[in-house]
């Protein structure tokens, strides 16, 4: 519990990478975490089936914001298929902390919104209601 809010998480939260808007996004989506009402939007610039650039935009808790910030660095240069394949393990690895199912929703908001932007229906496939 005490190391939930590690320095790197708070750093990403306070100084989010790739936050804001793109001039010419080729794909975008918005999502809401129904448990809290937090909203997150993503804009992508995709060229040659590869993510050239990405921006997240929205409000949320430290976990969701830090996860979005960390994932934004991860997706750059990845193919669409690779981004689609991102799941809870990837996000948890970036965050480096265990999460309860409820906070996992926060952490996964960014990858879910990414998937929607890439044309997949938003789903909960990573969300097991068991302790992570």
């Amino acid at each position: 519990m005490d190391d939930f809010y590690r320095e790197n998480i708070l750093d990403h939260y306070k100084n989010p990478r790739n936050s804001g808007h793109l001039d010419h996004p080729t794909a975008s989506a918005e999502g809401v975490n129904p448990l809290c009402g937090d909203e997150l939007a993503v804009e992508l610039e995709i060229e040659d089936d590869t993510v050239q650039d990405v921006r997240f935009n929205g409000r949320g808790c430290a976990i969701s914001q830090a996860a979005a910030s960390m994932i934004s660095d991860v997706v750059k240069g990845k193919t669409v298929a690779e981004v689609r394949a991102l799941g809870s393990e990837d996000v948890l690895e970036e965050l480096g902390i265990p999460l309860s199912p409820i906070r996992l929703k926060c952490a996964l908001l960014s990858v879910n919104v990414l998937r929607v932007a890439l044309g997949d229906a938003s789903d909960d496939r990573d969300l097991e209601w068991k302790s992570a």
Partner: protein
Amino acid sequence: MLRPGPLGFGLRRRVYTERMAVEAPTTPLDAARIKLDFPILMREVNGMLPAYLDSAASSQKPRQVIDAIVDVYETSYAAVHRAVYTLGERATERYEAARDTVTAFLNAASRREVIFVRNATEGLNLVAYAYGLKFLGPGDVIVSTEMEHHSNLVPWQEVARRTGAELRYVRLTDRGELDTESLEELAGADVKLVAATHVSNSLGTVNDVAAIARWAHDHGAVMVCDGAQAAPHRVVDVQALGCDFYAISGHKMCGPGMGALYGRADLLEAMDPFLTGGGQIAKVTLEGTTWNELPYKFEPGVPPLAEAVGFAAAADYVTRIGLEAIHEHEQVLTAYGWELLSAIPGVNLFGPPPPDRAGILSFTVDGVHAHDVAQILDAEGVCVRAGHHCTQPAMRHFDVVATSRASVYLYNTTDDLDRLAAGVDRVKRTFGV
């Protein structure tokens, strides 16, 4: 007056010497031992241990289920889905684990297809309101059956009334089975929904749900199955049955006041919500609202945690004992009870004879009202239900107002049925019939 030993009747076989002609059969379950799990069955009422033969109305609860409920309240209670603190996480995990248990119990394809409701009645009403009101209209035909419990009949009357759809019924044969001829009469109709029970609660008839679902789908209709009397007593696999909706009640399967509705995900997605409010919503503005994902779209309000956990504990309990063994046990008891009762002059049994029937013995005694039968049986410690069993059309088909009904479950023994038969003898003596 009959006085059982401390371990109940299981250890004192064949107390009714007049009935020695019928040999008590053995079953795959040690029901006398199972009874020990049920505190209420081990406690005397009017000086006798109860021969509880009313599980089709509601079953008793084993210590395992009661303990699970107490445990939640003592260790893990909080508002489900609504809290990030540890107790709240525990609560959410236990609630959603309960859903996983029920998902596996019904073999639903996904937990998103399992909605917690209050009971089968609410589940069926959910389909009527959220599917029926949205997708049915004038000219459409709803098919139900003459054997339905009111909970799978009146909601469709209401849908018909509100939407202008027409409600038609599959009639019964004199064995109490669905009349396939009357099904064929419906062949040309614009059938959009078929509502049928898996097992009749007043006749014991077991319907071929897979065949009805196929028939429905061949007509482009969805099939709504009332599983209230089936799920407690036999393996239910909603995917194998092929029905689109399936409603069950936990209180009939050793659980508390809680039920579940299975619904095919694509249908649930397309439906309007039913109850609206906290938790089933994604975003609310003063202008309008978007719905939460499945299954939460259909579960507004703070979820009933302890009830869900008790329900899952009940599913675990019957699964551990084994639904095949429970079913076989009940088949044996049913055949035995049928034999005992049909040997008594003036007793009329309803529904198809064993085998291939559920453990529900619906009967009348000539010259005695069903409630008086039940009342006198109570004086013998035998608990049976009397009435129309919320199946008035089926009663009318057989031209009776009410029957007495003895129904068996995993904790019943042949001795319970011996006591039933002896009680019916006493009924006849009392009324001089």
